[in-house]
């Protein structure tokens, strides 16, 4: 299995599920240049969708102002055993997704 671009951690605490995720992505703004002076084309994640048991929990619309290898953390009301799915899309059409069951070791 190819290594996923997404790292996903979930933790249950008092009825809340804390979700933390790191995505490996260059997040180029389109403003930077290489040493030769050529512009690096913009490539950044435009949408991150998080679903729990198929229901959307949080949707993030991002721009080039988000750091490289972005991190997102939030919590929602849920329980152990929920299936948390995170997927992202970038402006060049690339995407990835990862599913995880809360409280279950992989």
């Amino acid at each position: 299995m190819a290594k996923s671009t997404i790292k996903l951690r979930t933790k249950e605490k008092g009825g809340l599920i804390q979700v933390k995720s790191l995505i490996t992505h260059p997040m180029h703004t389109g403003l930077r240049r290489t040493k030769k002076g050529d512009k690096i084309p913009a490539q950044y994640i435009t949408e991150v969708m998080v679903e729990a048991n198929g229901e959307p929990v949080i949707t993030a619309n991002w721009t080039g102002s988000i750091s490289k290898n972005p991190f997102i953390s939030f919590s929602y009301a849920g329980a152990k055993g929920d299936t948390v799915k995170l997927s992202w899309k970038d402006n060049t059409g690339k995407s990835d997704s990862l599913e995880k069951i809360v409280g279950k070791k992989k």
Partner: protein
Amino acid sequence: MKRRSFIKSALVASATGAAVTGGILSSNAVFAASHEMDMTKAKSFDEAMKMMGATDAAESDMIKIKAPEIAENGAVVPVGITSEIEGTTEIIALISNNPSPYAAKYTIGAKAKASVKSRFKMAKTTDVVAVVKANDKFYMAKANIKVTKGGCGG
């Protein structure tokens, strides 16, 4: 004679050029209002607020921004935004001094807590403005972050 006609045509050309650019800009603004992703075209904080229709956002102390006062590296600045306003549906982060201030929008689902944390890029010392949409009204809060090394291009 030749020189005169050259100047004349040059003048005409530049005038039409300016008109065209002006036209493109205004049509962009109109387009942006209807299309989410074009928010990135907002080049100033005021413009971004206008595009969102949030110019009348009221400052609220129910919105908490958790961020360092001084960021050593503008390429990675952790910012957490929490809204205690009931019925929060959207959290929008704006970095006012960035080349395109509109940074991120989080749509909060029914189950999710209105609290998100991400890492942002900041070009220079700037205000981070959190705009929260709750019950079709906008609220905002500000935090100033001193950046010693910028993280947007360069």
